[in-house]
């Protein structure tokens, strides 16, 4: 037994993403995988990963950094591949989760139609989007998940359009469970993964994933950046049940937005109007607050 595996109360648990993977140091996706492993408590899963950093990190055939059976899907198709896998699993008495693990490119953009269709059919899978707000694998181009004002290689002066509301889209599909995940709030993360695991149908989890290369931030600040994102309100932690009942898991405190954006050169290098972002955050929280009060979970 090597020391490469997580030790969990003295026993060895093989991590979903094993050491020897090629993710950058401090990658938010890696942290997400460790927390996922902790949440699953040794339950086997199958992974479907589209073209993105997530599949590249497995390394070169024939070895793989993934410790669970994994299918590399074409960029737009993870929810379709997973539909097939989940259907056959169910036929054959296998109730372990089929999990899509896709970036914002494969979720918000090229994969949106596939995602929408799988959600509309309420396919039985857990879809996790690790959102680093760029097309990370190809060097950091803008996606529809890129926030307004952020500098990327294809929006060097700062993106003109606001970030697409993928949670709103998934809510409109009235899927049984949708939630946002924070890699800085472990208990909340584990609880939501377990809730998803114990729900049937289409479950969507959105994880804001710090990318030190794309965000031009320090790798050791990855967890702290997300904590601040939650604290200043830019990344709300909440759950939506059946598209109609809302629960807010954490309220923003008085942490200013500048604590978040000041540590990422992708923000500080562009001609960004912080006031616009502030207004977007306020608007989002007015909506969430109203929904949670009027339609509580």
């Amino acid at each position, binding site marked *: 037994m090597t020391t490469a595996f997580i030790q969990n109360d003295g026993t060895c648990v093989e991590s979903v993403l094993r050491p020897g993977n090629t993710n950058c140091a401090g990658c938010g996706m890696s942290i997400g995988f460790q927390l996922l492993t902790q949440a699953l408590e040794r339950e086997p899963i199958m992974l479907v990963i589209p073209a993105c950093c997530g599949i590249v990190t497995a390394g070169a055939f*024939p070895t793989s950094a993934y410790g669970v059976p994994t299918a590399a*899907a074409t960029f737009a198709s993870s929810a379709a591949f997973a*539909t097939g896998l989940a259907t*056959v699993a169910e036929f054959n008495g296998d109730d*372990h989760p089929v999990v899509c693990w896709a970036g914002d490119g494969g979720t918000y953009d090229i994969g949106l139609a596939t995602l929408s269709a799988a959600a509309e059919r309420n396919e039985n899978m857990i879809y996790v989007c690790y959102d680093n707000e760029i097309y990370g694998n190809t060097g950091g181009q803008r996606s529809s998940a890129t926030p307004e004002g952020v500098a990327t290689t294809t929006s060097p002066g700062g993106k003109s359009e606001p970030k697409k509301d993928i949670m709103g889209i998934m809510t409109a599909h009235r899927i049984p469970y949708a939630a946002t995940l924070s890699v800085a709030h472990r208990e909340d993360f584990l609880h939501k993964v377990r809730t998803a695991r114990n729900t049937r149908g289409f479950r969507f989890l959105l994880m804001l994933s710090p990318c030190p290369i794309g965000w031009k931030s320090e790798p050791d600040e990855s967890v702290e950046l997300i904590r601040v994102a939650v604290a200043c309100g830019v990344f709300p932690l909440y759950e939506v049940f059946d598209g109609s009942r809302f629960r807010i898991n954490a309220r923003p405190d008085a942490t200013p937005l500048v604590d978040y954006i000041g540590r990422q050169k992708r923000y500080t290098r562009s001609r960004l109007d912080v006031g616009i972002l502030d207004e977007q955050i306020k608007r989002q929280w007015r909506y969430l607050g109203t929904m949670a009060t009027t339609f509580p979970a």
Partner: protein
Amino acid sequence: MARALVTGNHAAGYTLALAGEANRVARGCCGGAYPITPQTEIIEFLRGFQFTKGRVVPVESEHSAMGVCIGASLGGARAFTASSSNGLAYMVENIFAAGYYRLPIVMIAVNRTLGPPWNIWVDQGDSLMFRDAAWIQFYTDSHQDLVDTILLAFRVAEDKRILLPVVVAMDGFVTSHTQMVVELPEQEQVDRYLPACEVPHRLRHDHPATVGGMTWPRETAHHRREIQNAMDRVPEVLYQAIDEFAEVFGRRPVGALETEFTEDAKTVLIACNTMARTLRRAVLARRERGQHVGMIRAKLFRPFPREELLRAIGSARRVGVLDRNHSAGSGGIFWQEIAATLQERPDVLLQDYLVGLGGGDVTPEIIDGVIDDLASRARATQPIWQEAMT
């Protein structure tokens, strides 16, 4: 077997369903399906079928239809779908994935012209578009050929020596929407004929492996070679499959190609699908007039049956290819393959005829014009267009 009067689409849907149902003894069947003219009746049939252990998923696009098939096949189920024309074009990325993943998926291609501009009529260009995608390709000429070849397709695809997906093509409208008499199989026969589907490299909880991750050039080249090796084994497996088919169904479907009057022919014409049936009537008429004309119906396109074709051509010195397809900047695609095959036969005059492109009715008169042109030609020339022959 039950004798029925049905459309080609009905026959195809029915046969796919029975094949899928046969796998209820193993991991079941599943596929994604998206409608497109002239294929819709197939998927409507499938969606109405009560599978014991199967599901046809009404996806939002053909790209996802193949995605679901891939997922299902990676899960170890028997997987199938159908499409045409632009649907196939939209699906192409995942068609390559299915081939490179060595998954035994069966797809019906109801041949239809690619667009836009929109054209709903028959042309083989849509299935030929992905001839490089590691799929076995069959071109059927009749309802019976279609039904029988679908069953052969599953048998060959899932054979451990092969493990490649198979596309079975039929003519849009001419076959798909035309009612003809056909012997449809019984479930019990299909159960006997098709062994349980086993995908050896499917995803299993007891063996974590990643299918499809980054692969270096050396492994990729080797992988392509393995696919070619599998393709090379297709004739052997196909004929074994036909032998087994004969035992269950009492007839032998055509394998790679079928010949008519080629033994003593000096002039041979080659065509596929329903056009080959018209060709046969034209050749028969010539024979009755004492002309030594022969014909070959091309059925297996991938792997391209070079040796069998060379034997079929025999001692003929003139070969004409009827292509209802066109690769812009070159010529007909069957012609290109046959030209490569005939490089050992520099004595043969090989001429390409582009007929019926965009779905026009190819009449015996048109074929007569082709035969006459071929017979009188001094040497081969650029592919000859139908409109240039009138």
